[in-house]
């Protein structure tokens, strides 16, 4: 079975606001996501996670590379085909307070995507709204209420219901619980896990909290300044992260005693002035082992074996690569 989403060498560039500089927020990313699979995207703030998500959802135009959905090149689709594709990929954002139009009632919020895509008549849409409320654990009596009448957790349920309205195949969850309290976060994560089982959804789960990755996803991709530096099976990743940057992230999340030694500097470079070669080299405790290679040559993301084997972008792992 082909992948649901396949990115090859995808890049997204922003022009600096009011300036002349350009910022490569996503820089040659190749990734694939299985139908019904769950993958996490992790990395420090500014590493390009949200931009990648927006490119996947068709909200920003990639500058280069290929984005295939269900085997078809998205750039080559006709406008109506692209419009139809939007149904199949939905986004849920971090901030449920900002992502729901406060002027719309629950019924309007849930009915709007259906209306835009001309799905069903008013009666069918209302029935669908009831079913959605039930699916996300809200009461059907909430149908006439407005977003401000709900708590943060309920609002995120509402945002999820809205994202599910068009029966998407892929849900992109961009920090969906980072504005919520731990107690409520657990409710939302549990809900997301059961919705995935129930509707056979694929998830791209963006987070800076590695403990959620462990809980929610089968695969994990680590981003560093626009590039994926490691892609791995989640369990294997937490057992033994392979890229030096991944090792640091996992140790920091574990509050391991040696976490400090795994990053030469806590400080990340400026995205406008990225280091040459491997952009992680000024912070990498292992670059000395390779002489000047890390400064002079950028490591490509390469798979360390067949099919489900991990991929890593680091010169240290050259010797382990499959020929």
């Amino acid at each position, binding site marked *: 079975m082909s992948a649901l989403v396949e990115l090859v060498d995808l890049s997204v560039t922003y022009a600096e606001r009011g300036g002349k500089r350009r910022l490569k927020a996503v820089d040659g990313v190749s990734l694939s996501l299985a139908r019904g699979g769950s993958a996490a995207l992790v990395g*420090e703030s500014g590493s390009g996670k949200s931009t990648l998500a927006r490119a996947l959802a068709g909200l920003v135009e990639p500058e280069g590379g290929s984005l295939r959905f269900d085997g078809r090149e998205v750039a080559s689709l006709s406008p109506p085909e692209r419009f139809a594709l939007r149904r199949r990929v939905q986004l849920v954002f971090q901030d449920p307070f900002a992502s729901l139009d406060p002027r719309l009632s629950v019924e309007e919020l849930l009915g709007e995507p259906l209306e835009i895509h001309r799905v069903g008549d008013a009666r069918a849409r209302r029935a669908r709204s009831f079913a959605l409320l039930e699916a996300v654990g809200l009461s059907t009596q909430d149908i006439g209420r407005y977003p401000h009448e709900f708590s943060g957790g309920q609002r995120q349920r509402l945002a999820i219901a809205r994202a599910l309205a068009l029966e998407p195949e892929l849900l992109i969850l961009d920090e969906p619980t980072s504005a919520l309290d731990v107690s409520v976060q657990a409710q939302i994560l549990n809900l997301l896990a059961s919705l995935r089982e129930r509707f056979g959804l694929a998830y791209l789960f963006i987070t800076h909290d*590695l403990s959620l990755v462990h809980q929610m996803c089968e695969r994990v991709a680590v981003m560093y300044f626009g590039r994926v530096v490691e892609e791995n099976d989640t369990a294997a990743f937490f057992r033994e992260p392979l890229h030096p940057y991944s090792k640091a992230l996992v140790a*920091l999340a*574990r509050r391991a005693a040696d976490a400090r030694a795994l990053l030469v500097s806590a400080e990340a470079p*400026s995205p406008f002035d990225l280091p040459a070669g491997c952009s992680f080299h000024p912070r990498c405790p292992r670059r000395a082992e390779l002489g000047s290679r890390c400064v002079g040559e950028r490591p490509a993301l390469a798979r360390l074996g067949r099919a489900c084997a991990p991929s890593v972008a680091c010169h240290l792992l050259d010797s382990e690569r499959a020929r």
Partner: protein
Amino acid sequence: MTLLQVDNLRVRYDTPRGPLWAVDQLSFKLESGEMVALVGESGSGKSTTALAILGLVPYSGGVVETGEIWYGGRNLLALDEREFRKLRASEIALVFQDASAALNPFLTIGVQLAEVLEVHRGLSRREALTESARALGDVGIPDPESRLHAYPHELSGGQRQRALIAMSLVAKPKVLIADEPTTALDPAVALTVLDLLKREREERGAGVVLVSHDLELVHATANRVHVMYAGRVIEQADAHELFEHPWHPYTAALWRARARLGGERRHRLAAVPGAPAELTALPTGCAFHPRCELATDRCRRERPDLSGLRRAETGMSLSSGRRAACFEKERVAGAHAETLEA
């Protein structure tokens, strides 16, 4: 040595939905060199407590109804604004969390640091700049003399955060109030901030009040913890005792609900049902009862006090400063004892 003692603090906000008591019957002590944490869901009154210690409640539109905050033999709440302003930054300082909001974009870092020292320590501009460079160096900013001349936007995000910490620490305050100091930070920078706070405690005996909703962080860094729910402390204990052997069902539930990095991947997390209490419409009796598995009729009627555990045979109160506000705490504590024995 006790640095700070908060007694019976009660803070009211008047809102369009009616009055609410963001903090009620709150008491705690901060010893020299210690980190005391306030934890709880959003809206539980943590930041309001921090504001009260800094004398800033009136500026947020609140009213301190009762309470005393003792520092250096004086009740801070009886000070006038001028006296309080002198204490702020020099003796009791806030560790800001948002660098972009707290630094003045039009002034160089050096000027902003030096001003604190001129005002609070009466140094000349020259002396103040020398001290400021030292403060920047102390927080790990390379080449501090030249960075004095930088404007905030010329520093990287991590450096800005450190400059801000340097500003909190430059006058060597005895009490540091850190309200979610690492929430917005990447993990490596967060760790440096925590290292800095630790150093202030160990080297100068500063006390830190850490406000956080991150239980793992609190578990790993604080000495003592006060768990707040709906404006009240519902449990207080040493950090390791609290999480490993909670007495209050809410503490136990919060600790269970967190996602974990280590160990088996579980199918589902142990969520706490319901939503945090609405302060303008507080439940009767124990404010946690609508979400509590152990709630009884008594819990719906009566509000439990913060008290120690009683030993069934003697009716005597056990153990040191540990307290919880729950009618069923013997059961909760016992449940742990049983699991431990099993």
